[in-house]
């Protein structure tokens, strides 16, 4: 026997906008359309042909993006609105934790509000009398129960609302994202209360963005997408599919944002690049950017991995700070580097082909920046692009294990692939890459010069790939600088914070960097073995 059954339910909301918004009594009377105006005409489907059954005693989680119809579903089950089509059957007393404390009157005391709210939720006075102490105790408001509700903090208000709602003793509990109530302690208490409901065989319908809660707590999950039922079933599986989908959308979103940022800089170009930049640390410095891969001439792709390979001994690569470019001797020789580079050519396709499908073509095209002005201080500069344009980075793509991506999982490999073009042969150059967190902390930066790759020459189009074996960053959003410049720091083409990627992680560790690690304990320190 199911507690909740939705049979091909649709719900259409009237769309605001157009002429309807300004319809007033006057216009309704003038056009004689009073009755017509009161009928929904242009509508938008919040729910479209959704069927769903929740068995008695089951906990069902509803997930989906904002605007996918989750709350509408809950309101239909609660009986607050009626479906436009289809049928909703609900068997048992329903309590809806949708808006806590709705109906509290601010001027009167908590005590009186408990009674009024209880009656509104369908209890009799006697039932409330019997549960009153329990409610107040649960809300932890013993000292304030006789004060007017308007003097309550929002947390107290919510707690009282929650306490009344769960003490209605419903057969079916509808929960809409209300667990963010109160402090940690209270949240735990709410969870306990839900668990107790579950034990007692009550039915729970839970709408939430807290996916871990759905996985842990629900017997079944429903994924709504744009008003339609996308998937129903085992919570873990549904949540996983949902997450994968969300990441896809995030990829697209980040790429679009970057494209916008790049567009902006392209438009701004022609003006003295980031003229406002403070004189600060001389333009030149800045080891942090630039990196490997002197792709000589055309299609050959060179690789160098920072840790091992080519850079012979020497501290420079190990993150040793700014062993900056001296106004160096422009010796165009780069002996050791290139052999290693050639060798790595393996599976890469030649330059152009690597252009990822995403194809968010940067408008970088031709239009070489006029820039002889000093480039901005790259610690302080905002996003942007500057440089002389002699060598240009025409396109930058991020790739994960499955190809072009903007969302990575901590520990996955990541490749930053740059398509570069030199208008004429250039002998003094270095490539650089650095990663910034959103609050501006440089997480890592390097360039080919720091890593002691001596440039020999570049001419025409080529490709540079910066390959990270394991992206050991904690979850968060990061921005990328990529650049090609002279070894003394003179910019050919500097892309400042124009590329965004996101790192996801199931662990909740904090900081920036996640070293590969393990815990070891001596025998007298023991932990419980996790439950299967």
């Amino acid at each position, binding site marked *: 026997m199911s507690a909740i059954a939705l049979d091909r339910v649709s719900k259409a*909301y*009237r769309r605001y906008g157009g002429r309807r918004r300004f319809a*007033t*009594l*006057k216009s*309704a009377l003038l056009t004689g359309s009073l009755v017509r*105006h*009161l009928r*929904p005409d242009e509508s938008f489907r919040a729910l479209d042909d959704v069927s769903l059954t929740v068995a008695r005693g089951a906990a069902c989680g509803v997930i989906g993006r904002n605007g996918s119809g989750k709350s509408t579903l809950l*309101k239909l089950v*609660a*009986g*607050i*609105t*009626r479906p436009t089509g289809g049928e909703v059957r609900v068997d048992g007393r*329903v309590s*809806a934790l*949708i*808006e806590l404390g*709705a*109906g509290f*009157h601010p*001027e*009167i005391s908590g005590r*009186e509000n408990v*009674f*009024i709210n209880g*009656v*509104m*939720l369908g209890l*009799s*006075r006697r039932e409330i009398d019997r549960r009153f102490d329990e409610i107040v105790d649960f809300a932890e408001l013993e000292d304030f129960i006789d004060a*007017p509700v308007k003097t309550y903090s929002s947390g107290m208000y919510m707690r009282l609302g929650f306490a009344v709602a769960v003490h209605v003793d419903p057969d079916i509990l509808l929960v809409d994202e209300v667990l963010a109530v109160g402090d940690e302690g209270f949240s735990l208490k709410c969870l306990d209360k839900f668990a107790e409901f579950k034990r007692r065989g009550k039915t729970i319908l839970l709408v939430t963005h807290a996916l871990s809660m759905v996985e842990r707590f629900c017997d079944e999950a429903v994924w709504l997408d744009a008003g339609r039922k996308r998937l129903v079933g085992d919570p873990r599986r549904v949540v996983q599919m949902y997450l994968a989908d969300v990441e896809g959308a995030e990829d697209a979103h980040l790429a679009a944002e970057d494209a916008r940022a790049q567009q902006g800089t392209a438009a701004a170009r022609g003006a003295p690049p980031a003229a406002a930049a403070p004189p600060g640390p001389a333009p030149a410095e800045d080891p942090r950017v630039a990196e490997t891969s002197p792709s000589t001439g055309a299609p050959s792709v060179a690789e160098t991995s920072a840790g091992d390979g080519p850079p012979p001994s020497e501290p420079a690569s190990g993150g040793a700070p700014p062993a900056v470019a001296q106004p160096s001797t422009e010796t165009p020789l780069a002996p050791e580097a290139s052999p290693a580079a050639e060798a790595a050519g393996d599976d890469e396709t030649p330059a152009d082909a690597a252009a990822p499908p995403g194809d968010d073509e940067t408008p970088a095209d031709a239009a070489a920046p006029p820039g002889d002005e000093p480039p901005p201080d790259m610690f302080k500069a905002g996003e942007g692009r500057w440089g002389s344009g002699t060598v240009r980075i025409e396109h930058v793509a991020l790739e994960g294990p499955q190809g072009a991506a903007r969302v990575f999982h901590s520990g996955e490999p990541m490749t930053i692939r740059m398509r570069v073009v030199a208008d004429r042969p250039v002998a003094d150059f270095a490539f650089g890459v650095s990663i910034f967190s959103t609050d501006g902390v440089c997480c890592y930066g390097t360039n080919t010069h720091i890593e002691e790759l001596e440039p020999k020459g570049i001419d025409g189009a080529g490709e540079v790939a910066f390959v990270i074996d394991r992206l050991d960053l904690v979850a968060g959003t990061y921005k990328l600088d990529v650049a090609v410049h002279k070894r003394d720091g003179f910019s050919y083409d500097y892309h400042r914070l124009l590329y965004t990627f996101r790192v996801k992680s199931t662990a909740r560790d904090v900081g920036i960097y996640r070293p590969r690690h393990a815990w070891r304990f001596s025998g007298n320190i023991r932990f419980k073995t996790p439950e299967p």
Partner: protein
Amino acid sequence: MLANLLRLFRYRGLIRILVARELKARYRGSALGFLWSFVNPLLLLLVYSFVFTNIIDRGALAPLEPYAVFLFCGLLPWTWFSSSLNESAGVLIVNGDLIKKVVFPVEILPVVTVVSNLCHFVFGLPILLGFLAWHGIPLRPADLVWFPAVVAVQLCLTLGLAMVLAALTVHFRDVKDLLANGLTLWFFSSPILYELSAVPEGARAVMDLNPFAHLAVSYQEIFFHERPFAHGEGLLAVAAGGAGLFLLGYWFFDRLRDSFVEEV
């Protein structure tokens, strides 16, 4: 619709508790508190009777003595009537949270408004009785029997109008402004400041269509005029109209019920 009407009856407990809440919350925090229910009509009455006895020459209305008592017979029920309608017009919007977030029988909101104003009306009655005693006007039990009937008719009429206004205002916010002006007009076209008999012949037909005119006259018959109650026919007509209006108002409200959640 009939089932819904029955439901209204079933919710009387909730109505009672909400009316109590209204009354309590109303004067919470004011120094006079509950006394305002008495003081408000008293002040209103003093202002009107001062103006109309000392400043404006009533001329034709001279025989209406004591004028304060006459005035009060119409003013007190008018206050109930007009505040009910004014508040009902906004009641669904003010309580939008309840409508949108809780399973709540919406129709009791205008009912609660009308009933709590009825309570204020009842609290004002002792003042009227006090004035009657002060002027030595006797109350005739035969007439007093009519009083509950008149109140019931007014309740019906007010509820019906309140339902319509509450529902309409959700869709057309202009109703509130229209109403404020309409009520002023209505006040002056009802025999509250003057006697029905002072209305010129030509305008009488219009006056007969004004339901509140009949109610005001009925109250005046009961409390002011010494003759036995003589407005039975008019009252009966308003009773029939009021009952019809209540059903119509409820039907209208019921039809629009589903739209409130989205429009409030």
